[in-house]
């Protein structure tokens, strides 16, 4: 690439990064604002963090959101892994096109449609059988549908870059299908499972629309509270929540990626050692 090209590239990429991070940076800075006017700087203060500690609506919502997100992460990874294995292994079975379409569509389907259709179905089911009541379980169900689609993409891309030779070797050495899966495949895709879990966890923790359709009395998640406050106008409590989220997520993602790259390196070393012994 020419020098002009390289400079243009540098400037373009820099511009995009500024665009991506400017709002996050602003949120963090103004969460330490002493002034009650959200966008006028009035000096450093922790008063909004103190106020957050007393904010039971946010705290209760956060606890509920955390539980739902945890459950969603687990169920999405299990279903997404099964779906990814299905798409990867079984190239021909009746309904494969329908299956692939149903797995992929929630990735792009507007959330208002997912939320509305699930709610109308659940209401019909409830009319027939008397359950389920709207709340934790129904929100979990909706988030799992969305999370499963994302988990499938993450796990599938890992399965595709994996060489089938290790599984074949285990099979040739007499391992049963279940043994092959739990002893060979699962450890090899464990990283992808961890990222899929984290991704679906954060998706669930963040969701407004599906939760708003599927929640019931007493099951207001944190994003619903934040959304209704943000709709009314600027609110300092939102900034503090944002800052805490950014800090936790950054630490989480950085730790996870360091841990994963270490694991990857160790596995590469073990593989190299194994091959040396054979020689």
């Amino acid at each position: 690439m020419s020098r002009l090209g390289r400079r243009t590239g540098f400037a373009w990429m820099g511009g995009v990064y500024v665009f991506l991070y400017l709002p996050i940076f602003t949120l963090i800075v103004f969460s330490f604002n002493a002034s009650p006017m959200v966008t006028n700087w009035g000096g450093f203060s922790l008063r909004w963090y103190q106020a957050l500690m007393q904010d039971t609506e946010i705290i209760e919502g956060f606890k509920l959101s955390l539980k739902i997100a945890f459950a969603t992460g687990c169920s999405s990874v299990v279903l997404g892994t099964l779906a990814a294995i299905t798409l990867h292994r079984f190239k021909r079975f009746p309904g494969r096109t329908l299956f692939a379409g149903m797995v992929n569509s929630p990735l792009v389907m507007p959330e208002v449609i997912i939320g509305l259709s699930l709610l109308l179905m659940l209401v019909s089911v409830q009319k027939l059988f008397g359950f389920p009541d709207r709340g934790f379980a129904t929100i979990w169900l909706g988030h799992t549908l969305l999370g499963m689609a994302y988990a499938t993409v993450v796990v599938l891309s890992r399965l595709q870059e994996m060489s089938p030779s290790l599984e074949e070797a285990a099979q040739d050495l007499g391992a049963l299908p279940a043994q092959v899966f739990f002893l060979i495949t699962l450890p090899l895709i464990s990283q992808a499972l961890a990222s899929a879990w984290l991704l679906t966890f954060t998706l669930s923790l963040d969701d407004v629309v599906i939760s708003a359709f599927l929640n019931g009395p007493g099951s207001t998640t944190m994003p619903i509270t934040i959304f209704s406050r943000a709709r009314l106008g600027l609110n300092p409590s939102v900034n503090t929540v944002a800052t805490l989220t950014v800090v936790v997520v950054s630490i989480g993602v950085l730790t996870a990626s360091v841990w994963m790259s270490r694991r990857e390196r160790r596995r590469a070393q073990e593989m190299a050692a194994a091959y040396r012994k054979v020689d």
Partner: protein
Amino acid sequence: MSALPASSPGYAHLVGRWGRVAVISVPMVFLLLVFLLPFLVVFKISVSEMDTVFFKDVLTFKDDAVFLALKYGNYISLTQDALYLTAYLSSIKIAAITTAICLFIAYPFAYFLARSPADRRPALLMLVMLPFWTSFLLRVYAWKMLLADAGVFNNVAIALGLIAEPVKMMNTPFSLVLGMVYTYLPFMILPLYANLVKMDLTLLEAALDLGAKPWQAFWRITVPLSASGIIAGSMLVFIPCVGEFVIPELLGGPETLMIGHVLWNEFFGNNDWPMAASVAVAMVALIIIPLALFNKYQAESTAGGRV
């Protein structure tokens, strides 16, 4: 034991017949019950009549006979009431503008990212993904702080003497499109990057050796080769944008009525479930072709074909 063929379909027998049925049927049944069935229910309700507190059943049993009561009234008002038509048109327009701007920003970005030193790429890519991991709701809210009349941009510009009066940016088409582009940009960057990073650079060298100008090589080699990435990214942005609710609610204004808001209002505001259901059916009709395109691309990439 005979040698296994290297292609993946060949080792399907690794999992026994019943294992295979179990692996397929668990996610399949889940999706049929939680994804497909709800759509059929929505369709049914969209042609039901609203009772006082609940919609009536389409089929009723009375005096040993089945009565079928279909109501097309919702669909008729969809085509005749200017509100719905305006909302549909402006949703498509805003989604199309957002997609175009995302493509314009993301394509050069993904191109330069794919051509940057290989050891720096994971970190640069991670920086694109990191905002995606932090709350989308909070990041949209942040634009409210930046763009408000007494917001950060206006305050800074006034303090520097660039403007005397605050410029109105919030609750306009500008703030809405800005928020949409901001939110969906990573969805455009990632498929484009995945595509461009795999590109065979010798093709470009060949074109240049044969006397093509760099921009000719770009338009006639790079762009056509990345067509599937462009389609995937565009669909990933366009389809959810059509039905977006949260961003227009926080950043949009009176001029930017979108269909997601209409659906929400019919449901939560007017409690007219059949009407909300028919708005949803019409929205699905609107996105069904882009959705089919997206699924075709996904099917190709999951089949291990060209990406």
